[in-house]
């Protein structure tokens, strides 16, 4: 494989968005007949790289070569004509049309100016058979599972142009059997000499199918590796990275050594679970305790948090607050139990962007009081002023729309929203993602202070250093299962947790 010439080479690719460098000097090469996994945590730049390649975004620095010729695509359609097809996680096919119509939509075989449906079905049948997909081409696409729809999308992409096929997280909604089905098709295509880029979060799948792995982190290239030479543990380490130097302002000492007063158990989850989201787990959180959740993206971290907040309903087990069974019917009941949840997705699940900073901060408190008991304006100004100052929210004018703030300041606004409700359990889901180092350090310091004040904190982060620094106890998740719970003692380090994530077994 090495001896053949690469079909695709990207060199020194850079891409900037206002205020963010999304890609910095990234190299990527792809050979015919290989499956090449593109790996990295959220925000690593995987999808930006794909979009730069297929012309969705323009390229700021660097070059793209296909079969030795420099190319620059104006958009996915141009890329497809040149032989680069992409199949996305969300299938963009028309489920109300038949399988054959979906494959030939926009380029239907014609006879006397009219669509030749008979030939279309016959051609589609041949194409599907050649890929080993057994589906009646005349049947409506909606009648088939997501996996089959995914394969139809692949068949269409391959039929249009067959040099480079990009699969952008094709397996995230498939079960194990369906993944195997899909992989059979992928292997066939590989044997036909296609170059396949496989974007995914699932480690096992990478090792099942990929020949080579390119890892990105924070928009930079970590490296290109042969799958056989890179143990899972090392891959995890390369994806997550170690940012030891970045937070020197914070005490390097582990808080576990700060001697927790063994507070009373506040939250006890007993076989709590929700099928399809997170397997039943046991977890106890004490007052004044910081519990960290470690695991890769999609490992069930947020799903666990949402159960504790009642954002999703559990379908197994019990939850006790202060030793009493409670049933969380929704966020409101959880808030009644003094549980607060800072959601992972700031824009979709947190901010009301057109409302002011003040309104965003006051929202949860106001919602819990109901509309008939407004927080008096004077009280609002006082509370908001106090938190704007304490959390160093900039700009400090609380009347400007929250959308005008930077990511870090928006995050602090959301923190303030929950802090003024005076919660006993504060769930922080990726509170430091996508914000600058300064704001990050401030938030970490705040967590320590809050816990010292007796608040229980559930801290979720993809960055192990951060989890290790803040948590008294760490729960490790892998593939939607809590695989281990470790007291954060001297001998627990990033290595050990990464091994646990990679293998599912406590080292």
């Amino acid at each position, binding site marked *: 494989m090495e001896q053949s010439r690469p079909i695709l080479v990207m060199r020194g690719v850079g891409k900037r968005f206002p205020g963010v460098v999304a890609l910095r000097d990234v190299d990527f090469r792809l050979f015919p007949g290989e499956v090449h996994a593109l790996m990295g945590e959220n925000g690593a730049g995987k999808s930006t790289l794909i979009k730069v390649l297929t*012309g969705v975004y*323009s*390229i700021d620095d*660097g*070059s*793209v070569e296909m079969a030795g010729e*420099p*190319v*620059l695509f*104006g*958009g996915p359609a141009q890329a497809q004509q040149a032989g680069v097809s992409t199949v996305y996680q969300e299938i963009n096919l028309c489920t109300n049309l038949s399988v054959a119509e979906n494959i030939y939509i926009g380029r239907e075989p014609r006879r006397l100016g009219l669509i030749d449906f008979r030939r279309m079905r016959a051609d589609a049948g041949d194409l599907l058979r050649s890929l080993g997909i057994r589906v009646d081409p005349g049947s409506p696409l909606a009648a088939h599972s997501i996996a089959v729809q995914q394969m139809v999308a692949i068949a269409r992409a391959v039929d249009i142009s067959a040099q480079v096929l990009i699969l952008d997280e094709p397996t995230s909604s498939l079960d194990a059997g369906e993944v195997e089905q899909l992989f059979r098709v992928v292997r066939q295509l590989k044997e036909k000499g296609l170059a396949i880029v496989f974007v995914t979060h699932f480690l096992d799948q990478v090792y099942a199918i990929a020949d080579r792995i390119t890892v990105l982190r924070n928009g930079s290239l970590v490296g290109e590796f042969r799958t056989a030479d890179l143990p899972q543990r090392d891959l995890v380490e390369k994806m997550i990275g170690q940012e030891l130097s970045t937070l020197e302002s914070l005490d390097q000492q582990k808080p576990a050594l700060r001697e927790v007063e063994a507070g009373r158990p506040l939250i006890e989850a007993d076989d709590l679970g929700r099928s399809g989201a997170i397997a039943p787990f046991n977890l106890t959180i004490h007052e004044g305790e910081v519990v960290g959740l470690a695991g890769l993206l999609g490992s069930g971290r947020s799903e666990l948090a949402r159960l504790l*907040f009642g*954002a999703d309903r559990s379908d197994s087990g019990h939850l006790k607050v202060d030793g009493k069974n409670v049933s969380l019917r*929704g*966020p*409101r009941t959880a*808030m009644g139990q003094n549980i607060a*949840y800072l*959601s992972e997705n700031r824009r*979709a*699940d*947190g*901010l*009301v*962007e*057109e*409302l002011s900073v003040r*309104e965003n901060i*006051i*929202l*949860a408190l*106001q*919602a*819990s*009081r*109901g*509309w*008939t*008991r*407004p*927080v008096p304006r004077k009280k609002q100004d006082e509370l908001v002023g106090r938190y704007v100052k304490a959390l160093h929210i900039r700009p400090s004018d609380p009347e400007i729309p929250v959308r005008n703030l930077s990511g870090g300041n928006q995050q602090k606004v959301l923190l303030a*929203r929950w802090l003024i409700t005076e919660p006993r359990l504060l769930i922080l889901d990726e509170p430091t993602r996508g914000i600058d180092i300064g704001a990050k350090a401030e938030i970490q310091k705040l967590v320590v202070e809050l816990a010292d004040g007796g608040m229980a904190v559930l801290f979720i982060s993809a960055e192990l250093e951060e989890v290790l620094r803040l948590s008294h106890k760490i729960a490790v998740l892998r593939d939607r299962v809590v695989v281990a719970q470790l007291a954060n003692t001297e001998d627990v380090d990033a290595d050990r947790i990464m091994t646990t994530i990679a293998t599912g077994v406590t080292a």
Partner: protein
Amino acid sequence: MSAVLKHRLFWPVAALLVLLLSNLIFTPGFFNIEVRQSHLYGSLVDILRLSAPLLLVALGMTLVIATGGIDLSVGSVMAVSGALACLYIVHQPDQGAPGTIIVACLLGIAIALVLGLWNGFLVSVIGLQPIIATLILMVAGRGLAQLITEGQIITVNSPGYRFLSAGYWLTFPFAVILAAVVVALTVVLTRRTALGMLVESVGGNPRASRLAGVSSRTLIWGVYVFTGLCAGIAGLMATANVSSADGNNTGYLIELNAILAVVIGGTSLAGGRFSIAGTVVGALLIQTLDTTIYTTGIPAQTTQLFKAIVVIAICLIQSPAFRAKLRRRPAAPVAPAPAAPSKAEVSL
């Protein structure tokens, strides 16, 4: 000055003023207001009086739109409420008795509230898309109104009922006072409690609002009931104005004018921030336009088209994007073309 220009009500108010002034060309005494028999008279007073039903409907529509919804059934609700009130009046021996009129009004408002509850139920509990949920009542409500009037036009002979629309109180038209009171109460209800903010929050980001503990279901249900109430009062006014209830024509197409008034007033159809002051200006603007069209003697068959053109012009001039385009037009060509292959060669 730039602060005035930037105010979000600047363009609607400017359009309203231009429209009012243009009437001077056709009606020299347009701005004359006089007091006859302690009643205010004049074209401006007429515009205010006639705009009252639209204003009420648009007021309810503002809150519905702020939650990200829409209510197409307001015209039909008007017809049902007016029809029921008129039906009750004509069956009383003394059509002018104050008791009769009060009961008639309460009946009309009660049925409007029930219809609002129904809309709110479909949207917030069943989860139907608002446009579909209220389309059901938009069609069915006309049928219900026809059923109440038995397909006839019910004519009432009740000066007391007519007072709702044409009467005067303290020299002001009663309809204007009523509309103003409802507007004022709504402002107090939304801005002196947390209602306004919570509605804007639900409309701005429903998912985030739910996670912040906002009870969006109750809130959304509530705004549809409120819209029903507003449409009910408007229905009483509209039927009182002509002393008759016509299941087919009362409030016909008023939903479109109301939506237009809300949008002209600066409330986004996508939900979120709403402006009651803006809606008031929007409603007055549309009524002024209607009045202007009548007084200028534009042939009846072309009024709709003329109105459409003016509305498009007003909407365009308000749109910041459109104004920016107008300004940019003489300058360099917009939107750089997608990078051509030649650029690749340069960068290599």
